[in-house]
C-alpha cells in the first residue's frame, strides 16, 4: 500500500518541483525572444550606453544609460540606509535583545515585508515627498533621495532576517573559545562572530539589493520619472522597472519600443541574476569554511 502511494506521490511532487524550472526557462526564453529584436534597430553599445530615452519620438532613441544609472543610484542610496539599519537590528536582536523583546521585535520587522509596495509608494508620494520638499527646499519632492529612503525601509526585513540567520549559524563553540581566551563581549562580537558570519551577512546585503533593484510600484510613484543621468540625490530619476511598468501598456506590440522594453527586462534580469549567483557563491563558501557542509 505504502509503495503504491509513493509511486504516485513521487512523480507528482517531482513534477511540481520541475514546474518552477519550466517557468524560469519560459520567462528567459520570452525575454530573449522579445528583447533581442531591438538589436536590429540599435546596437548593444548604443542601447546600454545611449544617453537619451525617447522611445516614441521620430526618430526614436533607445539609450538606457539614464535608466540603468537611475536604478543603481537609488540602489546605492537605499543600501546606505538599509545596511546600517538592517545589520544593526540583526545584531541587536541576536546579541542584546532578550527572548521576550526579540519575540516582539522580530515579527514587527517581518510585517514590514508584508506591506504591499503600492502602500509604501502612496505613503512616500503623499507624506515623505512633500515633507522632504519643504525640509530641503527643493523644487520637487519626488526624487532619488525619497525613493532611496522608502526602498531602504522596504529592504530592511530581508537584510535583517537573513543577517540574523547568519549570526545564528555561527557555531556556539566559536564564541565559547573566544570567551575562554579572555575576550570580552565586544571583542568576541567584532573579531569572532561578525567575521564568521561575514559572508552570510554579505549574502543578506546582496539579496536586499536584489529586492531594491526589482522594486517597481514604489519607484514608479516616488522617484520622479525623469530619464536624465542623475547628478545628485535630489534629482528625479527613472529606474528601469518604472519605465517598463509605465510604458508597456501603451507600446505598440511588436514595435521597436516594445522590444526595447523587453530588452530592459533582460538587463534587469541579468543584474538580479548576477546578484543571486554572487550571493549563492558566497554563502556556499561560507558554509564550507565553517565546516557545515553544503
Amino acid at each position, binding site marked *: 500500500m505504502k509503495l503504491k502511494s509513493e509511486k504516485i506521490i513521487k512523480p507528482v511532487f517531482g513534477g511540481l518541483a520541475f514546474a518552477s524550472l519550466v517557468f524560469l526557462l519560459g520567462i528567459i526564453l520570452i525575454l530573449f525572444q522579445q528583447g533581442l529584436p531591438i538589436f536590429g534597430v540599435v546596437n548593444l553599445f548604443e542601447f546600454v550606453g545611449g544617453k537619451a530615452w525617447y522611445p516614441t519620438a521620430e526618430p526614436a532613441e533607445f539609450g538606457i544609460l539614464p535608466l540603468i544609472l537611475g536604478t543603481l543610484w537609488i540602489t546605492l542610496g537605499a543600501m546606505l540606509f538599509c545596511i546600517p539599519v538592517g545589520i544593526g537590528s540583526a545584531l541587536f536582536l541576536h546579541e542584546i535583545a532578550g527572548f521576550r523583546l526579540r519575540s516582539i521585535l522580530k515579527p514587527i520587522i517581518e510585517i514590514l515585508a508584508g506591506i504591499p509596495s503600492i502602500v509604501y509608494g502612496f505613503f512616500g508620494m503623499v507624506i515623505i515627498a512633500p515633507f522632504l520638499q519643504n525640509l530641503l527646499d527643493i523644487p520637487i519632492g*519626488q526624487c532619488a533621495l525619497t525613493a532611496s529612503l522608502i526602498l531602504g525601509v522596504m529592504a530592511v526585513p530581508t537584510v535583517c532576517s537573513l543577517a540574523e540567520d547568519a549570526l545564528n549559524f555561527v557555531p556556539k563553540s566559536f564564541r565559547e573559545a573566544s570567551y575562554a581566551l579572555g575576550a570580552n563581549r565586544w571583542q568576541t562580537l567584532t573579531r569572532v562572530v561578525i567575521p564568521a558570519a561575514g559572508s552570510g551577512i554579505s549574502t543578506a546585503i546582496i539579496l536586499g539589493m536584489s529586492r531594491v533593484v526589482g522594486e517597481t510600484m514604489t519607484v514608479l510613484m516616488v522617484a520622479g520619472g*525623469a530619464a536624465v543621468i542623475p547628478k545628485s540625490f535630489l534629482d528625479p530619476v527613472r529606474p528601469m522597472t518604472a519605465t517598463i511598468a509605465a510604458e508597456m*501598456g*501603451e507600446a505598440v506590440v511588436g514595435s521597436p519600443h516594445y522590444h526595447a522594453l523587453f530588452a530592459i527586462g533582460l538587463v534587469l534580469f541579468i543584474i538580479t541574476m548576477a546578484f543571486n549567483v554572487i550571493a549563492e557563491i558566497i554563502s556556499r563558501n561560507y558554509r564550507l569554511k565553517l565546516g557545515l557542509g553544503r
Partner: protein
Amino acid sequence: MKKLFNTSILILAIASLVVAGEAVKIRIEGSTTVLPIAQLSAEEFMNANPDVTISVQGGGSGVGIASLIDKTCDIATSSRAMKDDEIKNAIAKGVTPVAHIVAMDGIAVILHPSNKINNLTVEQIRKIYTGKISNWKEVGGEDKKIVVLSRDTASGTFEAFSKLALNDEKVRKDALMNASNQAIATTVERTPGAIGYVGIGYISSKVKAITVENVTCTKKNILTKTYPLSRPLFMYTNGKPKGVVKDFIDFILSAEGQELVETAGYIGLK
C-alpha cells in the same frame, strides 16, 4: 474558480438563448482615457438590452488597437488616431479599421495656485517643455525654477499633447514623467514651481488651469476648436459596424449616449 465562472457564463448564455433567442457579446478594449465613457455606455446599453453582454477593459490605446488587429476585441477605444504602422499591420491581417469619433477631450495646462502666470502661448509651452525656458521669470513670472511634469511618452495624452503643443519636438530630459493624470494633478497641487497638463476632467480648485493663447479651456472652446489643445476620442471597429456593435456605437452617438460622455467628464459632440 475560473472554470466555475466560465460554466456560469455558459449557463447564462444558454439561458438567455432560450429566453431571448439570441445572446451576443461585445468586447471593448483600449484607452484608459476612453474607459469611463465605454464603461458607462456599456452599463446603460446592457440595461436596455439584457441579451447583450459587453466587457470593457483598459490597458491603453496601443493595447486596444493591437487586440482589434488580433480580432480579440470588437471595439478598440483610443485617445489618438491609429498610427500608419498599426493601419498597415491591420490590413496585412485582414482587418479594416474604421474610426468613430465619440467625444472630445481638452488638455488643460495647470499650475500651482500661487503662480502669478495666467496665460501662456503655445510657443511658450513648447519652449518650457522642450527645455529652452527653465525659469518662470522668462515668461513674466517670479524667479523660480520650472518643474516640468509630463505624462509617460507612451500614453495617449502625451501623444496628443506632443502633437498639439510641442510640434512633435522632444520633451526635455529632466521632465518628470508621470503614469497618470491624477498623479500630475496631485503633484502640481503641492509643488509651487510646477507646470503640468491633464484631461479637462481633472481640473480642480486646487490647481490653476491657465488660458492658452488667451483662450480658456472650456467645453465650448474645445468643441469649436478655438482652444488650441483639444483632441477627439475614438472607437475603432473592424469594417463598418454591423448588428449589435452598430447599435452600441449609435447609442453612444445618440443624445442619451452623449449625456453619458459628459457624465464621464468629457465633452459631448452636440
